[in-house]
């Protein structure tokens, strides 16, 4: 296996008195889909936010392509080639879909020496990328605040995928998606992985994880249970670990197996 | 010899007329070798001014010089300063009677209403029948008295002759223009200080009424003096603010040091400045005049 593109070593993150991460190490390789699993509040979102420059780790080291990296802000991570879909989506409700789609990466049209925002192109790309994901938007100038939850999530995913990257981080991308959209996202993950992009995929759904994941890291209360490769671990084991080793409520047998 | 005197005015910050007062007390302080301080309520709120007088009294100066802009509001704090043994001189606005009532030593100045009234009488004798009063601080109760006095002197109702011009020169200018356009038979313009006079001069120049319309103003300033000189302004009422500030400091110092005190109130105005004898006025306008 190639050397890892992103190494997170012994990351700790404290918020005031709260210890959200108590030393987590993870390697991410090119062309693999690395699933990050764990209970609610385990620290997954906090962990990927230190990857993408939103939080500064309280302790620990980040190596990107072998070199120590110190992301001061998301911009730095983005220009290094890390694209992220956050759990809280990073959408501006009052702005239109296409303005949101291209926020921070606006297409430019030159008129003489002047550079203008190319609205026409932005609109076209937005509509087509969204329909690739299985969402037929009514129009690119609808405000994001009036989209349904799943439509909004799809915009965020389509945006991250479109602008490509060396590392694509997806924090519960499928949580609000319909079946069709979900299968599109999973297919997309599968595709970009094959193109050599490293994908970090957070989910609570074991079946989704098993479908596209190459390696699985389980977090629990700010610590890691370690990383397992596909095939080394059964869905049931994984599910058990994700629940933090605690018992599941039983529901008259009808929910047997994986939730 | 280290005496400290505090002058409390009722003017909002940056009212340019009071600048002369500041220069007056500064000069007197220098000449008499005493410490002088100037204080004012930033928004011109008289209730805030009362607090400043109380504050001045608490810092225990040798004397306080203050205006009596509203007897009701200010008499209490002034009286308690007097009771505390601080010498008080009333300046600028107030009456002789009120000065006695609050227990102040004397009065230096000229009540606003009287000044306006005198101006009104003068305008009436010049044949003025209607006027517009450009008030740049409409909510200031003291300055509005000038308009009221003027109207009474003329013997016409104040009614809608007073316009709320705001303080922005462009707005003043354009409101004067608008008013004159809507009321073309206005005989006279009265402005209440450089803030409203300067843009009014421009307005009259622009609509061609300069020199044509009867134009009087309170207080002096660079542009006003030029206006008087060029005949746009008939007269400026000079109540000699310099004296209102300078004299009390001198009087208080001498009273404290040697126990001497003039026997009467001093009327520093109204003096009408007209095109005659403008030289010194011109030189010191806005500074000591």
């Amino acid at each position, binding site marked *: 296996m190639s050397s890892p593109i992103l190494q997170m070593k012994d990351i700790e993150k*404290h*918020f*005031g*008195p*709260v*210890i*959200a991460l*108590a030393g987590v190490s993870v390697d991410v390789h090119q062309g693999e889909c690395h699933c990050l699993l764990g209970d609610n509040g385990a620290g997954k979102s906090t962990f990927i936010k230190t990857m993408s420059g939103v939080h500064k780790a309280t302790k620990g080291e980040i190596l990107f392509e072998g070199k120590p990296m110190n992301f001061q802000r998301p911009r730095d991570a983005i220009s290094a080639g890390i694209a992220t879909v956050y759990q809280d989506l990073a959408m501006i409700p009052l702005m239109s879909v296409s303005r949101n789609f291209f926020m921070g990466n606006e297409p430019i049209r030159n008129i003489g020496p002047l550079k203008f925002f190319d609205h026409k192109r932005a609109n076209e790309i937005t509509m087509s990328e969204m329909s690739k994901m299985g969402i037929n938007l009514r129009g690119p100038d609808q405000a994001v605040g009036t989209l349904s939850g799943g439509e909004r999530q799809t915009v965020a995913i389509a945006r991250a995928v479109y602008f490509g990257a060396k590392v694509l981080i997806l924090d519960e991308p499928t949580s609000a998606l319909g079946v069709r959209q979900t299968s599109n996202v999973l297919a997309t993950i599968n595709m970009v992985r094959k193109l050599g992009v490293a994908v970090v995929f957070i989910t609570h759904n074991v079946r989704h994880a098993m479908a596209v994941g190459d390696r699985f890291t389980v977090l629990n*209360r*700010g610590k890691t249970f370690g990383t397992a490769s596909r095939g080394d671990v059964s869905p049931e084991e994984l599910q058990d670990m994700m629940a933090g080793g605690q018992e599941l409520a039983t529901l008259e047998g009808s929910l047997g197996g994986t939730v | 010899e280290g005496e400290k005197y505090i002058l409390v005015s009722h003017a909002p*910050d940056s009212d340019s007329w009071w600048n002369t007062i*500041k220069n007056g007390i500064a000069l007197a302080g220098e000449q008499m070798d005493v410490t002088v*301080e*100037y*204080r*004012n309520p*930033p*928004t*011109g*709120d*008289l*209730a805030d001014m*009362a*607090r*400043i007088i*109380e*504050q*001045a*009294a*608490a*810092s*225990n100066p040798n004397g306080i010089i203050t205006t009596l802009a*509203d*007897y*009701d*509001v200010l008499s*209490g704090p002034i009286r*308690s300063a*007097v*009771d*505390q*043994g601080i010498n008080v001189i009333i300046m600028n606005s107030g009456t002789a009677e009120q000065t006695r009532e609050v227990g102040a030593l004397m009065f230096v100045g000229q009540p606003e209403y009287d000044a306006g009234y005198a101006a009104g009488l003068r305008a009436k004798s010049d044949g003025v029948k209607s006027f517009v009063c450009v008030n740049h601080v*409409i*909510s*200031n*109760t003291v300055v*509005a*008295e000038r308009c*009221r006095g003027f109207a009474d002197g003329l013997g016409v109702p*104040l009614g809608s002759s007073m316009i*709320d011009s705001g303080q922005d020169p462009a707005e003043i200018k354009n409101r004067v223009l608008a008013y004159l356009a809507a009321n073309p038979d206005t005989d006279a313009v009265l402005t209440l200080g450089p803030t409203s006079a300067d843009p009014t001069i421009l307005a009259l120049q622009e609509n061609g009424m300069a020199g044509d319309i009867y134009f009087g103003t309170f207080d002096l300033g660079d542009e006003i003096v030029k206006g008087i000189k060029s005949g746009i302004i008939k007269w400026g009422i000079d109540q000699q603010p310099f004296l209102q500030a300078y004299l009390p400091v001198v009087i208080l110092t001498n009273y404290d040091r040697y126990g001497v005190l003039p026997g009467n109130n001093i009327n520093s105005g109204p003096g009408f400045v007209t095109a005659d004898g403008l030289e010194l006025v011109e030189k010191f306008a806005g500074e000591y005049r």
Partner: protein
Amino acid sequence: MVTSNPSPAPVADERIKERSSLRKALVRPELGGMCGTVLVFTFFLLTAFDSGMFTSQGVLNWTLVSAQFAIIAVGACLLMISGEFDLSMGSMIGFAGMMIAIFGVTLGWPIWFAIIVTFILCIGIGALNGYIVIKTGLPSFIVTLALLFILRGFTIFLPQTLERKTIIGGIRDVAEGDWLASLFGGKVLTGVFQWLGDAGVISTFERGVKAGQPVVDGVPMLVVWAIGLIIFGHILLTKTRFGNWIFAAGGDAQAARYVGVPVSRVKILMFMFTAFCATVFATCQVMEFGSAGADRGVLKEFEAIISVVIGGALLTGGYGSVLGAALGALIFGVVQQGLFFAGVESSLFRVFLGIILLLAVVLNTYIRRMITGER
């Protein structure tokens, strides 16, 4: 399902660092205000100690100014937490005072009646403010701004029409001995102060006609009102159901509506309370000074908002504290009067005011962050 026995308190969490209980006690919205207060007092103790600022008379002076700010800050604070602004507060102060004067002096009504009618009128205007904001969905900024103009206009127009001047005086005379007026204009604890003066704790006048009397002869009702409103506001906000609704309405009106909080009612009531505070301010002022003028209360809405913001509340609503606003009022009052005591050159007064306010706020924000460990 509605009833359920609380289970035993959860076990200690290994994911929380130990914190001293002192530090825990410090982590509250008022902390910033407290640090600012300490800072400001230290500053003036060093620069203006012998100027009379800390004599009993000097203390009374800045206490009065701070109490004035506090009265309107309490109203502005609760309204701001509920997510709205009231820019018409200053005009309301002028208007309320003028109405009392017109009713009491021009129309000659008994003063208690004039005061009651004015309160009803002004609280009604507050309700109207709120009603318009809720019904039209317009930002309160623009609605209350219109009211600012309208009320100030009436405050100029009415006395001008009725009395031909913009000041109406003589209220003290008609208020003499009125039971309601004394609630706003009198002093309490005069006996205690006389005793303190006799005992030499408070300095007495040395010369003049009042020689021998204590310099400060009682606690003005203004201060009593301020303290009363602060306590009321604080309890309302933190200890009652309604207080929770205030936070909710300001934090996210939509979310609050979803769970059944009567957001419109809360907001309208807060507008009314703000009007009430403004009227208290006006009544105290009129009773103390005996006259009402068209210039009263100009820009007071700003001073109220400044106090509230210094006290750590969010302009966007949903966060803040009445005690913080009260401390903000104290800081603002002390800085303002302290600069006079320190004898700052009058044209530089504002420069210093601005710098000290900024420093107070910056420092208290940093200290709060340091202690609470935010970012």
